[in-house]
């Protein structure tokens, strides 16, 4: 849905979304990476299972929650990507293990 205006060059990193390797750039948020994917959604709501995607990007809507490196319900708009980061779209409530 979004595209980068520039080539990250030296700042290029790789992260994994649901196990698939995708390019990212140092300094950007996890939510920004999600919004460049074919499927932009970040979570399924706990109540009705509807898809949600990052919406406000400033930490107030909580629709960008996803699992990051094994931790559930992370606000991906407040989380900066790290090389090798593992991001999983969250399905419903945060599980007890995450």
């Amino acid at each position: 849905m979004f595209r980068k205006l520039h080539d990250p060059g030296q700042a290029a990193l790789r992260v994994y979304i649901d196990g698939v390797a995708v390019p990212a750039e140092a300094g950007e948020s996890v939510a920004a990476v999600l919004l460049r994917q074919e499927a932009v959604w970040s979570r399924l709501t706990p109540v009705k299972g509807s898809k949600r995607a990052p919406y406000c990007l400033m930490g107030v809507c909580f629709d960008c929650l996803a699992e990051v490196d094994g931790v559930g319900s992370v606000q991906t708009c407040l989380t900066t990507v790290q090389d090798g980061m593992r991001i999983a779209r969250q399905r419903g409530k945060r599980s007890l293990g995450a």
Partner: protein
Amino acid sequence: MKPVDLLIVGSGPAGMAAAVTARRTGLDVLVVDEQPAPGGQIWRDIETVAGTERGTLLGAAYLDGRRAAEAFRASGAAYEPGAQLWQIEPGFRGFVTKAGEARIIEARTILLATGAQERPAPFPGWTLPGILTVGAGQILLKNAGQVPAKPVWLAGSGPLMLLYMTQLLKAGGEIAGYLDTTPPGRLSSALRYLPGALRAVGDLFKGIAWSLTLRASGVRRIRHVTDIEAVGTEHLEAIRFRTASGTEETVQADALLVHEGVIPSVHVALALGSAVTWRDDQDCYVPILDAWGESSQPNVFIAGDGAGIAGAKAAALRGEIAALGIATKLGQITPEAAAEASKPARAKLERELALRPFLDALFRPREAIFIPDDETVVCRCEEITAREIRAMARLGRPGPNQVKAFTRAGMGPCQGRQCGYTVTRILAAAEGRSVEEVGFYRIRPPLKPVTLGELASLREPEATS
């Protein structure tokens, strides 16, 4: 650990300016911010972006942030980015989580510089992936250098909308169309504030320049749009809209950015018991503050857009004034010295505020956004519709807290940041009461979700050394 003299929440224009001024008076200062870098939303990623092509594209008002961030970094204030504040106890004890660990910060005074958020404006389908706020679009441009991949639809009203569209076009992005929701007649009701606004003639010209850029670009602009509906099952597929003259149209769309102005973030202030008042001209609550920015709770100060929307320049000035007030209260400077030192900032602030009544009247949102139709989701977290809220209103004359208890609206992770005002407005309309009388959710800690693990990591502050 000795309590810090001043704990500042937020490192945007107000928080940074306050830190710089407070340090100059000799106070020790700690700034916590949930973002990973200083600048707030307006100057997001300023330190990394300022020197790049993207910085130039974002414009002079954005680049102003570079000097502010440099001064902040050089001020000697302690700074904790990536730290979420979730409670403040009287005294004060601030509870903060950073990287999965919680801790307590003791402070003699507090400055809330929590800024603003975009005004939630629910419409049918607004929770679909593919819909973001205009502010989100702009943050993506600042933080990630990214723009919508295909021609994008925009809907709403306000200065940020015009600014973002200008930046987007300059960046090489494409606009499919702009659904301008500014109601007819807003300009004439704003004109009576024009003489005052002319004192801020620079900003006024900036606004006119944005409008002219848009006109010259040939972007399709549909005026006086009254109703918007997003259509789609798992992602936005189409937008249906209607104008004041009754024209209806459906357009295919995969991305829509919406914006209906900004409102102060008052959650922390409300949780602390700082009194607020309803601002009819800005359709929001603002904290009641004295001339130094102190709230009804002693030693709790508020500056920046969180004290009432006035923009970045005013935010920095109010931060400076609040810091002087705090230094006076802590006996660091005399009241006379503070009065003298605050004079230049007060004079500049008066000029900055001169444009506000004009802007508030020109971009006052249409009434319809406050009373969404029955099918519309009001509480995004718990997926509660306007119908469910209205059904509650028919059961008696419940306030927002009863509605919260019975429906769970406002109980999700966002803690009512998206639905609070809508619930209040729906109840006010259904019960024939004023917004002020209906009130707002009682805001309780945790202000942001905290896990049991984070709670378990809490340690009492060490004994005073």
